[in-house]
């Protein structure tokens, strides 16, 4: 006789046994509260469990999760006097900030690079978006196959630097009409320009120089009319009247970090857990789930900044106008209020949204992993016919396709023995990813 399971009051379970929500909204704030303020500032609150210097330390650069857990579980809106910011670390709090354009603003990368002469970011123009979607969908397979063919000539390959880091740049080069001969230099300049948005003034200076070099490069390209024979992002932009400075501004605000970091972290997670790898490689769907779980479990972009547009009370604190909020994906994506066993990399996780969230960070009643660089969830309730898919979906599909091709073209991908691999940020605040992942590859 089948025994009816006792109802767990802490969970709300939907059809097919999927956990829809951990609990009803309760006084501890585990529910979804976008604009709700749940407590006033607490007199005498102390933060002795953490020192702000921990959040900029070397150990944080390698493994930020223990410190983030302290923040999330004890000080969900932590006033960091050292870095002059507020750390927001719970899932519901982070997503509520992202959904609140009226009170919190995003600043573009132009603001951080502070380079002179940059133009307009044309990344949201429809023709550019269509060109991008077309390139990712049509070029990814070809570029990946060619890259793997080259890699197979070596006995040992570093998947982090030779594959994950190179592929997005090669696709980008294709989209901007950069020839094979120019692509290495282009990739170098692009990488330097992106790092120029860092807090490090030396990187910033180098980034500005790289932006100028790219500006000269694209101005020359446009002048020579090369783009006229092309059908890509560059030609789409020039058709809209773009100058070199607009192309560079668009490039600056183009994300490569998520594809690079997610690919690297996906392969890191799979290769360090052979059983998970077996499961992930069993089908393309499983590989897609492993990719989504990677963005949740080990997001390459650990946090995103938002700035308070006005003095506002949130999460029991009075946040002053102009305050910088560090919205932490690393902490929010491991919030036990949202995900079961959040520290675990689970390929077919059942309490996470398995498709692109629309209009909010949840779909099907489930939370999604927050991946900032992919942008906020599409505001469209369904994919309209006259618009391309969101970057979230495009990058996901491209990354999964590329990984699938790598799996199909090779056999026995294994980590080199005696190699210690780990995730880290190059400097505090930069991408948290695997920078060294040596494997032996054999053609399949």
């Amino acid at each position, binding site marked *: 006789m089948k025994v009816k399971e006792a109802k767990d009051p802490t969970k709300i379970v939907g059809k097919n046994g999927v956990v829809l929500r951990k609990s009803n909204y309760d006084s501890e704030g585990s529910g979804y509260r976008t604009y709700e303020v749940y407590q006033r*500032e607490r007199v005498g609150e*102390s*933060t002795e469990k953490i*020192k702000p210097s921990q959040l900029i330390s070397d150990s944080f650069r390698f493994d930020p999760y223990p410190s983030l857990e302290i923040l999330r579980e004890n000080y969900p809106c932590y006033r960091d*006097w050292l870095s*002059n910011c507020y750390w927001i670390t719970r899932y519901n709090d982070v997503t509520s900030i992202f959904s609140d354009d009226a009170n919190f603003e995003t600043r573009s990368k132009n603001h951080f690079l*502070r380079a002179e002469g940059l133009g307009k970011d044309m990344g949201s123009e429809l023709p550019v978006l269509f060109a991008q979607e077309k390139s990712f969908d049509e070029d990814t397979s070809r570029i990946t196959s060619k890259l793997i063919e080259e890699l197979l000539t070596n006995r040992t390959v570093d998947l982090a630097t030779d594959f994950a880091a190179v592929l997005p740049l090669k696709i980008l080069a294709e989209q901007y009409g950069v020839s094979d001969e120019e692509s290495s230099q282009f990739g170098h300049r692009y990488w330097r320009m992106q790092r120029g948005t860092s807090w490090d*003034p030396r990187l910033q200076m180098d980034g500005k120089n790289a932006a100028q070099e790219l500006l000269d490069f694209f101005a020359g390209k446009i002048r020579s009319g090369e783009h006229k024979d092309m059908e890509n992002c560059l030609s789409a932009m020039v058709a809209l009247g773009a100058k070199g400075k607009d192309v560079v501004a668009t490039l600056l605000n183009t994300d490569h970090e998520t594809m690079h970091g997610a690919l690297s972290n996906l392969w890191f997670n799979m290769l360090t857990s052979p059983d998970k790898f077996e499961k992930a490689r069993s089908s393309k769907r499983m590989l897609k789930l492993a990719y989504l779980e990677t963005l949740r479990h080990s997001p390459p972009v650990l946090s995103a900044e938002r700035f308070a547009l006005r*003095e506002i009370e949130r999460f029991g604190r009075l946040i*002053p106008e102009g305050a910088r909020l560090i919205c932490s994906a690393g902490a929010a994506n491991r919030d036990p209020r949202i995900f079961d066993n959040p520290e675990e990399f689970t390929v077919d996780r059942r309490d996470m949204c398995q498709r692109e969230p629309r209009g909010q960070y949840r779909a099907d009643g489930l939370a999604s992993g927050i991946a900032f660089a992919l942008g906020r969830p599409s505001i469209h309730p369904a994919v309209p016919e006259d618009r391309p898919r969101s970057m979230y979906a495009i990058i996901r599909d491209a990354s999964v396709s590329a990984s699938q091709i790598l799996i199909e073209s090779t056999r026995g991908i294994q980590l080199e023995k005696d190699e210690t691999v780990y995730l880290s940020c190059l400097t505090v605040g930069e991408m948290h990813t695997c920078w060294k992942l040596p494997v032996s590859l054999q053609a399949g």
Partner: protein
Amino acid sequence: MSEETVELGPEIDPRIFDSKEFQKDPFPIYKQLRDHHPIYHDRFHNRWILSRYWDVDGAFQDNGSYDRAMYKADGPYDFGSRHVFGPNILEYGNSDEHRRLRNIVAGQFVGQKLQDFIPMIHQISEEVIDRFIDSGEVEIISQFASQVPIRVISNMLGLPREDEDTFVTWYQDLIAGLGFGGEHLMRGLNARNEMWDYIDPLIKKRSVDPGEDLLSRICTAEIAGSRMSSDEVKGFVALLLAAGGDTTEKAIANMWYHLMYTRPDQMELALSNPDIWENVFAEMMRFDPVVHAQFRYTTREIPLYNDVIPERAGVILYLGAGNRDERAFKNPDTFDILRDDLHMGRENRSGRYKDGKNGHLGFGIGQHFCMGYAMARQESAIACSKLAARVKKPRPKNMVHPGISSPSIDSGGFRSPEELIMEFDK
């Protein structure tokens, strides 16, 4: 403020500001800031830095552009609940409320009211010196510098003298609580709460039955019919203990440090001339003041040196750097109590003096100019001249000294040596 073109120099890694190296010797970085980055955007700490004398001076004077308060002073909030001192004027920015509170108390520390306290400062200094004068050696910080100010303050407030050691513990914890580390905040809040419990009955008593002491005066002082509330009095007493106690303690220690180690050749002059201690005080406040930085928040976009500080940005005014600006002082890195380009007399909030000389920035300038400036100067000069008169052939016990340093970034506090032992003939 200057609009000159600045030649960019080597970039400064903003992590240097958290280093022990900077806490100990910030002056090479200050020079780099002044010369090559007079407006420095420190993205690592999310703030801007001004370091040249006239830029710091200009920001202090410009209340319309630079606000002291993080929050809007007219917001519907309970101020001070999270501040380690409790509600106090530091939280009220440039508002009318700040002016009201300041006007109530500011008059208590200048003019005749200050003169009334002078004999007591003399007496307390002598009493403290009596304790060690026969030993031939004094650790200046613990046996002298930390003993005088707190006794002066508790005496001014009319508090029981047997509790003075407790006040020292409280003010040290209150000051540490201003730092970044949470455990220091907890210590500070505990000290504040203990002090409030201690002082509450005294406030009630003196509000209805005032005496001649400062606490009675503050409880009953009125400006346009307005008195301080009980919480405001408590917040002010915490501020007075911490800001008036610790800063003067460190000032006295630093004055002796510089004469013992930085300019021993000027020690003889200071020993033979009691009036010169006012110069020692002024030069110490220029050369390496107790407080090196003040924070402000911009109220509008500030164009400066071909850059723009955005609205509501945090700005550090490095008065420690401004004081060493070659644009304001000759040979700024030389400690010289006879310097002829520094206003050595009493400071004022305008920072402009009839002798045409520049003043030090150590007390700030403008609306938030240190209220206790005259008290600190008198107290330091009197205590030091008393000690100088009593000791024979004073000399450092250790020929090598680790020097003055700021405390670690986790705790609040002021610059001073950790230990300063002086020997003298009995």
